[in-house]
């Protein structure tokens, strides 16, 4: 019997020493691995939810991510990056393989995202829905790296410095990447309005 403790709400901004100790314990102690899981499961799920576009696949890939983490944890070595960075790498690789296996871009469902339809204004609601779908299509056309950046920024509410730590880049590089991502989204949205989203990932260095 177990209960989800307050650990489940703790995010990666816990003290690094505490996290390091927990990771070391988790290599030998199954319950410590459980705590580590509680700490990161929601983040990884959200990331995969927005990368796949639907909750079922997000659940499946979240499970695969943590099973792989469990398998590789004994060989994990801290190299100055937060533990979350390692988990995001695993999740990223899993979702990329998943997309390759299915030989398709993910279905743009995201139906479960809360909609803010204008009540009592069907025309407004329709326009809002249309705009939202255009934005989702444009988002899906972005490279995985740029999608990851937007998810970390908006869904996780991370700062550029935190995103940089996760993605292994400097704060300035993230700021610049974000700007280029917005420009690409703008271009994609214009493309959508002209009859279909297009993608121009460009160099992300």
């Amino acid at each position, binding site marked *: 019997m*177990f209960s*989800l403790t307050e650990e489940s709400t703790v995010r990666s901004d816990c003290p690094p020493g505490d996290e390091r100790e927990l990771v070391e314990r988790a290599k030998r102690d199954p319950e410590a691995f*459980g705590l580590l899981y*509680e700490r990161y499961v929601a983040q990884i799920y959200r990331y995969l*939810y*927005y990368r796949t576009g639907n*909750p079922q696949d997000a659940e499946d890939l979240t499970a695969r991510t943590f*099973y792989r983490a469990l398998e590789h944890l004994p060989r994990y070595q801290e190299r100055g990056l937060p533990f979350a960075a390692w988990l995001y790498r695993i999740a990223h690789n899993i979702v990329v393989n998943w997309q390759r296996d299915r030989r398709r871009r993910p279905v743009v469902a995201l139906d479960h995202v809360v909609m803010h339809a204008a009540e009592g204004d069907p025309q407004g609601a329709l326009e809002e829905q249309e705009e939202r779908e255009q934005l989702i299509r444009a988002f899906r056309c972005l490279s995985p790296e740029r999608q990851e950046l937007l998810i970390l920024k908006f869904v996780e509410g991370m700062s550029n410095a935190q995103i940089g730590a996760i993605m292994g880049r400097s704060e300035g590089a993230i700021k610049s990447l974000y700007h280029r991502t917005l420009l690409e989204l703008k271009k994609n949205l214009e493309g959508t309005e002209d009859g279909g989203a297009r993608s121009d990932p460009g160099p992300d260095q």
Partner: protein
Amino acid sequence: MEEQEATLVRISERLQQLLVPVEPPLAYVRSLRAELVEAARRRQERANRLRRILLVGAAIAGSVASVAGVTAFLVLRRRARVHPPAVVG
């Protein structure tokens, strides 16, 4: 230029509305946790068993080596008594 900046800000605001935090279902989180902890426990048990096997194996190998060493020593000593080395000169 200003127009472009305004468009980017607008896109950023729309992203903020689109990319809202979602939570995994609690039942799923709990059940996956239980599965993972169980898998970790089994893995730990396998590792412990392997460590024990290696330890016992090393102990047996050590014992065999000791017995073989003592036996070899005794055999050589007996052989030396039966056939003492010829004294030169």
